[in-house]
């Protein structure tokens, strides 16, 4: 009894080992794969990454076809339509009623069309503000860590201050002063997100700048900016990408929060936060579809980005190589099984092609 598992495992191992050696040969023949390309290859082998990408693509598709959706259904995302959008008693339609797939809101607007338009705002704000925060945070973190001294003291304290700020309050004040708008919302979110990236980049820069390759760069006459952005930056791109991916859902939720509080993008614009806020005034209708569908949209988007962020982190982390090696082995074994049944394996070569 105690012997048989060994026998089974060794028997199962034999073909796998042959396969992995082949895979190794294939990898060796590809010259100079950059760490990022390796990570991308690992990301492609991650099933959860595909699920996450699917969720994000669903939302991107929804955002792209929003005008199409509006013109097909003939439902405007902005204008209240109490004639077509509500029943004879002035009550909103539920999901599936009168040609409204997800129902209408309290002034008769199509919730599906509004969610599609809301996806545009959410993705725009989420990605644009994260991009701004990432670029700004990376640049300031690099400068802070590389120069040190009073520049570092100043920037590091600034990051601490931003991170410890009650940002919702600050956003409310800013919106009250300048009036809520899309650029302001993006700016506010970017301003309160850059410090998280800046701090990580600063720490990484502090460790990287002591490496000998930085000294080598100085000895060939490279300037400070070249050292920072050409030599050090590629070495901390991995944490920046991971953190950036994980900042997108935070920014989207932040934007929805601001809209919900009425200090983000103004009410006529359909955003998920605005739609959730509408629900407050509609509690009497018992219209669950007011908040359920925008919430689901928000959930799918943030979950998608969070899952993608996790996968990206796994793909970029060299310590998870064993996990991926195991997966590759499994996949190779599965391919072997399939090919021994079919007699040929054209798939194996096709997968590795760049």
């Amino acid at each position, binding site marked *: 009894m105690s012997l048989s598992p060994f026998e089974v495992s060794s028997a199962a191992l034999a073909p796998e080992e042959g396969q992995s050696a082949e895979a190794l040969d294939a990898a060796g023949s590809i010259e*100079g794969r950059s760490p990022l390309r390796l990570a991308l290859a690992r990301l492609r082998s991650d099933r959860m990454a595909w699920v996450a990408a699917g969720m994000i693509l669903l939302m991107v598709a929804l955002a792209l076809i929003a005008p199409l959706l509006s013109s097909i259904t003939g439902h405007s995302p902005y204008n209240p339509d109490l004639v077509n959008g509500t029943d004879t008693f002035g009550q909103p339609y539920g999901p599936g009623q009168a040609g409204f797939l997800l129902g209408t809101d309290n002034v008769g607007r199509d919730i599906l069309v509004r969610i599609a338009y809301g996806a545009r705002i959410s993705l725009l704000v989420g990605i644009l503000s994260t991009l701004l925060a990432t670029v700004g945070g990376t640049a300031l973190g690099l400068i802070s860590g590389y120069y040190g001294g009073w520049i570092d003291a100043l920037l590091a304290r600034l990051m601490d201050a931003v991170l410890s700020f009650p940002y919702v309050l600050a956003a409310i004040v800013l919106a009250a002063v300048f009036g809520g708008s899309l650029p302001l919302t993006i700016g506010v979110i970017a301003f309160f997100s850059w410090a998280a990236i800046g701090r990580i980049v600063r720490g990484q820069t502090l460790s990287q700048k002591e490496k000998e*390759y930085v000294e080598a760069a100085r*000895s060939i*006459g490279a300037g400070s900016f070249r050292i920072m952005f050409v030599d050090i930056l590629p070495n901390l791109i991995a944490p920046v990408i991971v953190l950036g991916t994980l900042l997108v859902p935070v920014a989207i939720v932040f934007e929805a929060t601001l809209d919900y509080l009425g200090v983000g993008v103004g009410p006529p614009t359909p955003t998920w936060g605005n739609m959730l806020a509408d629900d407050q005034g509609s509690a009497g209708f018992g219209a669950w579809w007011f908040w359920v569908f925008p919430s689901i949209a928000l959930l799918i988007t943030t979950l998608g980005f969070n899952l993608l962020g996790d996968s990206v982190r796994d793909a970029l982390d060299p310590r998870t190589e064993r996990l991926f090696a195991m997966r590759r082995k499994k996949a190779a074994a599965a391919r072997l099984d399939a090919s021994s049944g079919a007699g040929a394996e054209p798939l194996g070569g096709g997968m590795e092609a760049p």
Partner: protein
Amino acid sequence: MADTTAPVSPAGDEPPLTAAPVEDRPLLQVENVVKHFPIKRGIFFKRQIGSVQAVEGVSLEVCRGETLGLVGETGCGKSTLARCITRLHPLTSGRVIFDGVDISRLSARQLRTHRRRMQMIFQDPFGSLNPRRRVGSIIGDPLAIHGVADGGERKRQVQELMEVVGLNPEHYNRFPSEFSGGQRQRIGVARALALRPSLIVCDEPVSALDVSVQAQIINLLEDLQGEFNLTYVFIAHDLAVVEHVSDRVAVMYLGKIVEMGGTAELFGSPRHPYTAALLSASMVADPDKARSSHRVVLYGDVPSPINPPSGCRFHTRCPKAQPICSVEEPPLRVQAGDAAGHVTACHFPVVPGEQLVGTAPAISAAATAFAAASPEIGEEDRA
């Protein structure tokens, strides 16, 4: 080989090295260079509580086409001196004159033009190459920074360099992690060579490599010296390597040069007890010689460079130490019977043929003598 300057080679099997200077002026003059690293304490207001005296008044000259070997124990300030020469560290005091120009006080911008002619090869072939950049761009960096070549021309020059140092030019787009230690050091050599410098400071270029690979890199460096008329400052702690590559050798101990002279002379008849001890400690490949040779064993550790010993810095470990050694610092001077270029900083230089008794009793006897003369030094010895 494009060597036209010196038809005389110092040793038969070596490629011709330019023993005589092209011009009278040395390529590199180091005058009284001092480098102290401050030690700071405190959370808000950092105050200096002391300093590591890494290099303490070093002067030397390197002529065109020659190789100056720099040897000494770990922590004696060799690498710091190298970084002072290439101005990777600012100097505490002293001057570095490169080809007639004092570069020790130049700003970073002014320095850039001089960097073209003065390059460095680093010890660690892993740390000194950026892991995230392709070999082509690492070697091409100097060309890009100084605007020497762009685009296709840069690629062509880089591939030429790769060929010169014995790398496959087709590996242009690979990453450093895809190369072995020796190949990586070749990449470092190619990078240093890219701007066709006059001086290359080699900071222990082979100490991180396998012995068989060491020989390849040393031979490569010697070939390149003939081909590109290079001058080397060659730092190492492997005496056999230094003896092989150097025309002249300087021995450092605790931030100071204790002896300097022609390789054959210095290795043949060392005058400083420290040099003698170093030489006796190196391995001899010939077992008969090894058996007959007498080892001078030094006891104790190198004293702290934060608080170096008074007088001659070697007196705490010297088998020949006398009371005067702890009081008066001996200057570097030509000792009686030595050639003009052979200088030693010692009150009681080793007489050729003398057997140094570098044993514990000698040291403790000397220590007792010091203890009587100056109590604080005796204490340091015991500690």
